[in-house]
């Protein structure tokens, strides 16, 4: 089946298998591999994207459900060569180890700061509770969130 949607501000079309997840479509058909595929059951958050402005695990969205909707992936955050402030903060705080969880966390932090510009530690903890870092680099990730919040 064919669907049409907006991805990172661009009109895109995709031909897909009916049972396919939004994550598979983004990575394999639309060639946007920034959203990572790890658990495929909503546990790790590394596939986090914004669907109509809401943070979701793209592995748990049926691709066909995105027909006519708007997706923002980690690839859509930077403006040209200019990193998004959250991306910049992750670099400056050294909040990246193996890097696998980073795209999902960057999207989740972007969502958090859009709603809560100056989050407390408990708010950060709750907002990022769906994103796992297998390197356990959470202290630096917290630093990055505070840095991005200060920079706003």
């Amino acid at each position: 089946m064919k669907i049409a949607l907006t991805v990172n501000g661009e009109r895109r079309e995709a031909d897909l298998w009916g049972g396919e997840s939004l994550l598979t479509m983004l990575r394999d058909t639309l060639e946007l591999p920034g959203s990572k595929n790890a658990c495929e059951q909503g546990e790790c958050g590394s596939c986090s994207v914004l669907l109509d402005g809401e943070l979701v695990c793209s592995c748990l969205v049926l691709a066909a459900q995105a027909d006519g909707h708007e997706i923002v992936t980690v690839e859509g955050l930077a403006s040209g060569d200019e990193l998004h402030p959250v991306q910049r903060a992750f670099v400056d705080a050294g909040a990246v180890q193996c890097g696998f969880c980073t795209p999902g966390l960057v999207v989740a932090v972007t969502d958090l700061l859009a709603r809560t510009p100056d989050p407390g530690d408990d708010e950060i903890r709750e907002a990022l509770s769906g994103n796992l870092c297998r390197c356990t680099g959470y202290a630096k990730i917290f630093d990055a969130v505070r840095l991005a919040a200060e920079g706003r």
Partner: protein
Amino acid sequence: MCLSSPVDVHTPRTLDEALELKAALPEARFVQGGTDVMVELNFGRSRPPALVNLAELDELRGWSSEDGELRLGAGLTYTEAMRPELAELVPALAEAARTVGSPQIRNRGTVGGNLGTASPAGDALPPLLAEGALVDVASVRGVRTLPLDEFLLGVKRNALEPDELVTAVRLAPSGGPQTFMKVGPRNAMVIAICSLAVIVDAAAGEVRASFGSAATTARRVTVPLAEAAALPERVADAAAPIDDVRATAAYRRHSLRVLASRALERCLRS
């Protein structure tokens, strides 16, 4: 994925259209938020010949309140259930919603999905059961309403006929002090080892408790307000837990006794 058999996806734009599809396609899987169904699909645990996307149906969205009766659309998300205006009417449901998965899951998972899946661990079920919720189900044959305790039949079994869909949950908020508690290894991303909702309904002169993950379905226990102190033992007696990978039956029963006593303290103090 390319080797998979074809799957037709239907996206009805009205509830009537969805009900016609439900009657015509008994083998189809109906998807709202996808947080349960997509896991089955991603892991090849189910290969339905067709999927029906319910996410575009306005009839299932949101909530409304009229003459003291609250109607929660089946498509109400946990994130929506946590928002202040609704949280004020059904605080225990809002607390339960906040324990579901993560923000990503709460933005997609729905109350209707919790009823459709009918897991004994469904987090929305104890607070709804404690408020005596009714479930509206619809089909091309018409609409019927069942009390939630009659809707929940067993582990992942509910009273839906093959052509029926859950459209809403209705309840009259008691307004009494209430709370929800859940035991698990961390605060997020946890399937309840056991869970408990307690409501002190002074107007009705009773205390109602409902627990999850400690019997084949969520169950309710009611005691007269004057005998509130007996609630922890009554809850523990009503539980019929099992040993499984998450905990032993004995631990679940003990936890429920402790939770009931803490919940009472929390509610009676306020």
